[in-house]
Structure formats: structure tokens, C-alpha cells
């Protein structure tokens, strides 16, 4: 991923004066457009291509209180070789874990090319003092995380303290060092598409390498219209500044069909340049097996039962 300047041209401070130009989203129309794009019929070669891309873009995730080194080790094996019986199936992009489990993941993934992503900044609520959040990030980076998935302070955002949110993202970005920063907006708590767009632009202006929909801890995580709103924000930043910011929907994407619908949106909104794990990720846990099942079906013409795919 290309390292971006923290403050791209066109998004300089003071931010307050710039926010009114951010524009708005029409709810009915954006949902209609997302609905239209979801009807694309992707078949044969095109479907197989999309399924393999979806695997390559996956951030295989486990974020549970009950995560153990054993669980994470198993997940890492899955990440490297999702389908042990088919070597042509690529590795996923990254494994996403809590900071404490980064060392285990790092060790198991060494040399595989699969990245380690860690959530941080008092995930999932973000309701802690800034120094705690920064320490959280620093620890995860010190443990070897390649990527940091931070959460924005929704309390500050919803009370209109945009500059506070902005400053916090900037500080986290500094603490990341060389690690890439994904900024989680937690869209289910933002309430409106207008807010999603505003938070997306804010995060990108503050230096996010990726913007991400959700923690996965709330119902109503990633949805197709929210995804579209964020892609359009990314497109506007690219048009205005030439900077390419990545996108990561997370939470609730469980089927191949749904994953392809997300990829179609990327393809028809941002274009083929974004169809790469460098700029697009899907945060998921159960999705991978459904994709494997579909890949095998496309290749052999027959469905196999769930028992033929490993649960990790």
C-alpha cells in the first residue's frame, strides 16, 4: 500500500469550514441504487474470478473473549491454506485478532505473506482516554501487527465534536508508525447516511489508509447502501486529491452471493483499480467456507456438504 500524506490537499484544516461542503446523501435514492447493483448476475468465469478475489481480500477475523492461542493458531492455518484439498485457492489477506493474540498470529503466519491485523483503541466502544487508546495501538504495533483497526469515538462524533475525532485519528496514525491504519466508523451507531459520509471524509482527511464499516459487534453492521456511500466518499477523495484510500466492509457478510454484490459495487463505483487486497478487504469469519464451497462447485459442477470444509 502506498503511504499517503496525513493531510491530503483539499482537506486541510480548519476542518469546520470545510465540512459544509461535504454534501449529503439521499436515503431513498442511495438504497435504490444499491438495490439495482445487487441484481447484477455474475456467472461462470466472472463468478470464479470474483470468488477468488474475495478470498484474497478476506481479513479472517476472530474477536471473542474466548479467543486462545490455540484458536488463533488454527485460524492462521486456515488463512494460509483456506482449502487444504485445493492448492490453487489463494491465501487470505490478513488475520484480524485482539492485541494480546498478535504474537501468536505473527509467529504462525511468518513467511506466508498473510498480514496480521489487530484491533485497538479500546475496541469496540472506543470509550477510553486517548492515552489508553494510543498505548493500545503502540502495544499492538510492538507485538508485530502490520495493520491497526481503530474505532472512532462515536460519542464525540455524535455530539458534534468532529475536531476531537479528527485529532484522535491523527494521533493514532502517528502511533501506528509503518503499520497501516483502518478506521472503523461503526456505521450502525451513526444513524444516517449523511453521518456515514461525513465520518468517512473525516477519517480519510485524518490519514486513514482504509475506512471500515463496523466492529462486527453490533447488529446491522455492513449493508450494501452504507458500503456504496463510503465508496462514493473514497471516489470523491480520489478525484479531489489523487489519493487512493482502501475500503473494508465488515460484519454480516456470510455468503458468496453477498460478497459478490459488494465486489460489484466496488467494480462499478471505484473501478478495477480497487479490486485488490491492497485497497479492498472484507472482514469476515464464516464467509470463507461458503466461498470455498462455491469455488469447488464452479470447478467441479457439484456441491459438497459443509462437512468437506474445515471449521476453524
Amino acid at each position, binding site marked *: 500500500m502506498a503511504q499517503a500524506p496525513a493531510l491530503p490537499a483539499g482537506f486541510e484544516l480548519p476542518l469546520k469550514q470545510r465540512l459544509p461542503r461535504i*454534501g*449529503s*446523501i*439521499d436515503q*431513498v*435514492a*442511495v438504497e*435504490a*441504487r444499491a438495490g439495482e447493483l445487487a*441484481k*447484477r*448476475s*455474475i*456467472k*461462470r*468465469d*466472472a*463468478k470464479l*474470478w*470474483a470468488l*477468488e*478475489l474475495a*478470498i*484474497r481480500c478476506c481479513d479472517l477475523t476472530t474477536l471473542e473473549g474466548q479467543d486462545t492461542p490455540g484458536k488463533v493458531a488454527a485460524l492462521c492455518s486456515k488463512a494460509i491454506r483456506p482449502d487444504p484439498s485445493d*492448492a*490453487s*485457492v*489463494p*491465501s487470505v489477506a490478513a488475520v484480524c485478532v485482539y492485541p494480546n493474540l498478535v504474537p501468536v498470529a505473527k509467529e504462525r503466519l511468518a513467511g506466508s*505473506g498473510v498480514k496480521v491485523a489487530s484491533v485497538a483503541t479500546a475496541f469496540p466502544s472506543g470509550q477510553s482516554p486517548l492515552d489508553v487508546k494510543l498505548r493500545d495501538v503502540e502495544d499492538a504495533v510492538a507485538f508485530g501487527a502490520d495493520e491497526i483497526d481503530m474505532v472512532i469515538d462515536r460519542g464525540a462524533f455524535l455530539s458534534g465534536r468532529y475536531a476531537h475525532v479528527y485529532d484522535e485519528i491523527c494521533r493514532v496514525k502517528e502511533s501506528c508508525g509503518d503499520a497501516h491504519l483502518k478506521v472503523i466508523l461503526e456505521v450502525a451507531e451513526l444513524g444516517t447516511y449523511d453521518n456515514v459520509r461525513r465520518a468517512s471524509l473525516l477519517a480519510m482527511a485524518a490519514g486513514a489508509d482504509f475506512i471500515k464499516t463496523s466492529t462486527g459487534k453490533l447488529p446491522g453492521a455492513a449493508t450494501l447502501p452504507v458500503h456504496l456511500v463510503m465508496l*462514493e466518499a473514497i471516489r470523491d477523495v480520489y*478525484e479531489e486529491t489523487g489519493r487512493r484510500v482502501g475500503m473494508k466492509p465488515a460484519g454480516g457478510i456470510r455468503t458468496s452471493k453477498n460478497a459478490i454484490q459488494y*465486489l460489484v459495487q466496488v*467494480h*462499478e463505483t471505484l473501478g*478495477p483499480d480497487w*479490486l485488490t487486497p491492497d485497497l479492498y478487504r472484507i472482514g469476515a469469519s464464516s464467509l470463507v467456507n461458503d466461498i470455498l464451497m462455491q469455488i469447488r462447485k464452479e470447478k467441479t459442477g457439484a456441491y459438497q456438504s459443509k462437512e468437506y470444509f474445515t471449521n476453524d
Partner: protein
Amino acid sequence: MTEVAKRGGAPVPADWTYAPAPESRDVVSLRERYGLFVGGEWLEPADTYTTFSPATEEALAQVGQASPADVTNAVGAAREAFAVWSSLPGSERAKYLFRIARILQERSREFAVLESLNGGKPIKESRDVDLPLAAAHFFYYAGWADKLEYAFPNRTPRPLGVAGQIIPWNFPLLMLAWKIAPALAAGNTVVLKPAETTPLTALLFCDVVRQAELPAGVVNIVTGDGATGAALVDAHVDKIAFTGSTEVGKAIQRRLAGTDKKVTLELGGKAANIVFDDAAVDQAVEGIVNGIYFNQGHVCCAGSRLFVQESIADTVVEKLKRRMATLRVGDPLDKNTDVGAINSRAQLEKIQELVAAGRDEGAEIYQPPCQLPEKGYWFAPTVFTNVAQSYRIAQEEIFGPVLSVLTFRTPDEAVEKANNTPYGLSAGVWTEKGSRILWMAERLRAGVVWANTYNRFDPTSPFGGFKESGFGREGGLHGLAPYLDGVTHA
């Protein structure tokens, strides 16, 4: 797809080319030859002509060219059926209409495929727009059939008799539904003439009429060209309902002057789609695309004049061009096609002529790169910028996928320019400001004003024009009145 690199064993093609996803034609069984549907029977016409698929120029079937005598015959059958149909209780008529609506739903795939085959429109539109709306019209007017006294309180609504109905080729089945459903609900019988180039779904509808066991002669379908239409206008009918070009509409009105036949006309348009600088820009761009490229722009209410507030004109045009590049033009039966074939050679030539005029007058043309099929009638989505109000492309109805972009500075100027046309069928307003929507809607001289959307239709909502876009309303309660005596226009 060409493979350019290998990573982790996975093929990485240069880009993602969607594989063809054609809807199967097998659901449609075409006959070689279609007669005229008169009095519940198929009559053999003296003359026939060939109907084609505009996407491939493939000959689909032979259909009848109804003569004046055939038309007289059909009107006679309708007249005979009128006695039976008009004396049925409204609740009985409703049963038939509900039945037609349900059959249309059941056979929707068959109708959608045939509509795309014969008319060239993308299957996703015939499947998701034409068919559901056609069924919805029958459902809606079925509900009114036994409530006419309540629709027009303190009146005695009576059916007119026989309605002659002439419909266009852009929404063949939907226009049939718009015409037949209110007429039948009100107790009239009909003789309908489909457009010359798109008769097949109307002829398939005759199967539905039979399947629904509608009394013979209540619905009669006569196919043919303009001469058949003229014969229907001159025949012994009580009302003419016409949807089509302003030119033909004027000719019909001249012909009917001095007769006691009632008439409603739904004619051309040159609608203004007005985008203010506070609009949700990406959604407005979708609305612009839907306004002009929906059904290849073969829409009387198409948003063919785009007025953008000057302060955001560059942004909107840039976004529009990028969006146009993602439009998929091609096989109407492919489920991923966004823009299908132009309906006929004649229409294609008309579009080409006006586009050439636009270039000559000095407008700047943009067409996204797209490969058009070699056979059939095709025209790439087109946008003209630097258009002046006086250019032909800003004045005349093109009825194709061609958009003219103009700019304005203030709301007053937007209204003035939008109304500065002989037409007045529809308009669109894009702004986040609710009060401005109402302010604009009060001042725009158009039958329909859409706010933050475009080309939305619903059977409960009246549709019709101002000025040269015609008179009379279709849809809603208003759509019943033109088929009833003893009521004032609601």
C-alpha cells in the same frame, strides 16, 4: 479474460469481465402468424406484415394489418359486448380484472422476455418495471370497479361505450394496461391498436383475456400501422385514448373536431431535470442517468434537458460522464444490460438526425466508449454540453438516449428556462431543501414533478401533460373520469 499474472496460484485477469447472463427465450413460444383478436376469436387478416427484434433484426412473426373493414368489425364486436359488460355488477367486473392481474403476475417472465425481444428494452426493466406496473394497474382499477359511486360522490357515473385506444411502442404492455384497466373497470369495452413495431405482448395478452374467461368482445386487439389507427379514430367509437407523438395527437384532434367522441391525448415531452447545488450529488447523477437512459430514452417523460446550477455544473457533468462509462449497452435479454436496442430503424434515423444537428449547432458531444453490436439498431448513451436554449436538441423531443445539459444561476431562472418549451409532461427537482421543492413544484408547468427521484410510476398517481404534452389524466382516480359519463373531471 486474459490472464496477466499469477499470485498465490490464483489467476489475476486484467479486469473483471462479466460473463453473459442471458434470460432464456424458451419461456416464450412464438406463433408464425398472428391474426386479429375480435369478439374473442382470431380472425385471419387479408394482409400481414413482419415484426422484428430490433436488437438482431431477426424476423419474429407475421402479424395482421387490419383494414378499415376489420376495424369496423372489431368495433361492432365491442359494441355488442358492451351491453353485457356494462350491465354486470361492478363487483363482477372487478373479479375479471383481478384475474387478469394475477395471470399477468404468473406469466410475468414470459411477458418480460417477449417485451424485450420485440421492443429491445433491457430485460431488467421489463422484468422489474413494465410487468409489475402492468399488473399493478389491473389490481388498482379492479378495486374501483364496484366503487364508482364513491369515486364520484353525488354523481351517476355511466360507462361511455366503446373506447378506441392507440398505444405507443415504448412500453407496449404497460401502456395497454394503462388503457384497458380503467376502461374496463368503468364498464366500457375496448378496441386497442398496439404500435406497429411492438404488437407481440398485446397479442399474447389476448391469451390472458381468454384464460381469464372475459366475455367475448370486451377486449379486441387490432394490429397494423398508422392507417389502422386512423381507421379506429374514424370508426363508430365513443372515445379515443391516444398515447404517442404530438404530431399524430394533433392529427387525431383535428379529425375528431366536431364529433361527439371524447378524447384524451398523452403526447411528447422535453422534460427539465433540475439539479440545485445543495442536492445529494451522487444520487442526483443516478437520477439523471435513470431520467434519460432508462428504456434508451424512449420515454415521453424522459428528463432530456438537464439544468444544473452553474456552481456545481462541472462536478455533475464529470460524475455523469464517469457514470455513463459504466452503462452496459447490448443484448436486451442479458440480465446485466442497462441500455438496450433502439426500437426501430426509423427511430434510430431520427435520433441520428437530431444528434447531427446538435453537433452542427456547436454543442459538445460525449459518448462513453462502448462496443455496439453490428446487427440491430443501436445508439450509444450521449450527452451534449454547451447547449443553448435555442438549439434543436434543447427544443425538440429526441426520444432517444441523448441528454442536453444547460446551466442556470437562480431558482427563478431555472423555472423560467424549464417552462420555456411547448411541452409540459414532467419535471425533476433535486435539492435537499424541502421548501424549495414545493416552491418549484408550484411554478413548473408540468403534469408530474418528481422530487429527488425520476421516472417513478404508480397506478394510484395521475399522469398527463400540460400544453403540447396533451390533456386528460391516466392513473389514479383521475384516470377513471375520462372513461365515464356523468362525472366532472376530478
